[in-house]
């Protein structure tokens, strides 16, 4: 079939109007993905190390546990890896109130639906002598910040 210039131009015209329409919809949809987030930073400071007692201390603002053993510190997330509820420390293990996941003292899954252990966050000592946590950086189980109390 022979296509004349008029037909081509007509389809180009209709096509460009339709393409503009689709692009508008795309632009409208894009607006729903925010570019600027007013969210707390993933790196934040906690209290000075000597303020933490031995054992497990819950930080409700950042939803994590600061664990102190003598002069060693590590930080375990309190957010259940199943569906995001806050786990509770029960002396020997972490238990989740939403779907019954249980984790041992190191965050390893004991039972329940949690698919992975509670992550350990990187913890350092900030220049002003506070514990500093990067919740975007996970470290292997057993990592610890050693000796900040003696230094302080």
């Amino acid at each position, binding site marked *: 079939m022979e296509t004349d210039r008029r037909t081509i131009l007509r389809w180009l015209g209709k096509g460009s109007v339709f393409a503009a329409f689709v692009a508008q919809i795309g632009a409208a949809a894009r607006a*729903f*993905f*925010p570019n600027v*987030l*007013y*969210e*707390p930073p993933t790196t934040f400071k906690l209290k000075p190390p000597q303020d933490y007692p031995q054992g497990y201390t*819950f930080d*409700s*603002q950042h*939803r994590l546990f600061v664990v102190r053993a003598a002069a060693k510190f590590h930080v375990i997330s309190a957010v259940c890896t*199943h*569906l*995001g*509820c*806050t786990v*509770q*420390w*029960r002396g020997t293990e972490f*238990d*989740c*109130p*939403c*779907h*019954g996941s*249980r984790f041992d003292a190191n965050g390893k899954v004991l039972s*329940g*639906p*949690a*698919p*992975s252990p509670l992550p350990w966050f990187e913890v350092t000592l900030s220049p002003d002598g506070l514990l500093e946590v990067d919740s975007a950086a996970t470290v292997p189980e057993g990592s610890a910040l050693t000796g900040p109390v003696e230094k302080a």
Partner: protein
Amino acid sequence: MAGSVQRLWHKLFWPWAPASEREASEAIVRNLWLHWFPAKVSGRSMSWSYSFWLGTAAASLFVILTITGVMLMFFYVPSTERAYGSIKDLEYAVSFGRLLRNQHRWAAEGMVALAFIHMARVFFTGAYRGSRVLNWMVGVALLLGTLMLSFTGYLLPWDQLAYWAITVGTNIASQAPVLGSTMRYLLLGGNFVGQQTLLRFYVLHVFFLPAVIWIMFAYHMWRVRKDGGLAAIVPLRAMRQAEPKATPQSKSYSLFGLTPGTSVAVMSSMGLEERDQVASSPNLTRRMILVFLTVFNLTLLLAMLFNAPLEGPANPSVTPNPAKAPWYFVWLQELVSSTTVHLGSITLSGGLLGGILLPAILLAALIAWPFFDRSPANAEGVWFPRQRNRQNAVFAIVSVAIVILIIVGLYLRGPYWHLYWPWSPRPVLPRVL
């Protein structure tokens, strides 16, 4: 007095008084409100014991929800700081505010229940076959929309239930393959539950989802008529077609006086006879108003007797122990709690298996079911026909399983989601923080 009211009514809405049966039918078509209905309706399809008017009752609840919802919008502030307070104001500072909120809540839970029971009725009577398959699918979509409205609705008070339901719900969405984390980001309007999240769910709840449901509902009703009314008349029509037609006597005038003869038998377009049908107004309209008023008064009674639940204000650091979903979602909570599986080194989270895949399979089964239904035509439009026993059993077993999961979730789950008998004491836990 009554006469002048009637004259005014007729002047406003019904400018044409019918003088004959035919004109009465046309009058219905010409009336702003009544043209929604067919001129005539069969007594069989209005039977109380066939349909229990469940669809009408669910639709009545939706009307109640729209009206009470718009009224609540005048008092509710969709802000994370003020939402909870505005609900407390409704309860304690606004005259009849608590009643309004209660009625909205109980009507919403009633609509979830009735939409499901209505679906069960359609299934058990085999009323989804032939041309009605499309409307069955629209119905499944309406049930899904009702559940989404409920979910977005109970988030708005921004209490503990709301906060942790959003947290868990959006984390389930994030488990979906490929698009999961994008979906979570889109729903939350960020990476954390916050103001953007509340605003998004608010707009979904007060405009987007109701608009979609109203449009689908209008289509649902239009299809009921285009598909030939309720399936209840299918057996009746089959009976009428099998009956020998008595051709009525007629008389015609000829040159030599009256000549006796026979005329044609007249059937309606529905395949029914004149005696099977009555005028829609007032027979159908009166029943509809009766159903609406019954449903309205029941929700009002519930609203007076029982208060809608409201937990403490949202606290992002403490999850209630145990945190329970409302009854219509607690079976899903049971599923996500127990469906994490380990296959060698691969772990499938309960969020994906029980939260997405299993519900998707149930939904797909509902949508696809009519295409696998091989029961004979005479199993349509009657309750529990013998030929559909196996199909009805499958539907009943799945429904009972869901009800059992709901009962387990509601009454047997205690702190840390452990199982307890309803009569056994639950441990009193110190608030470990």
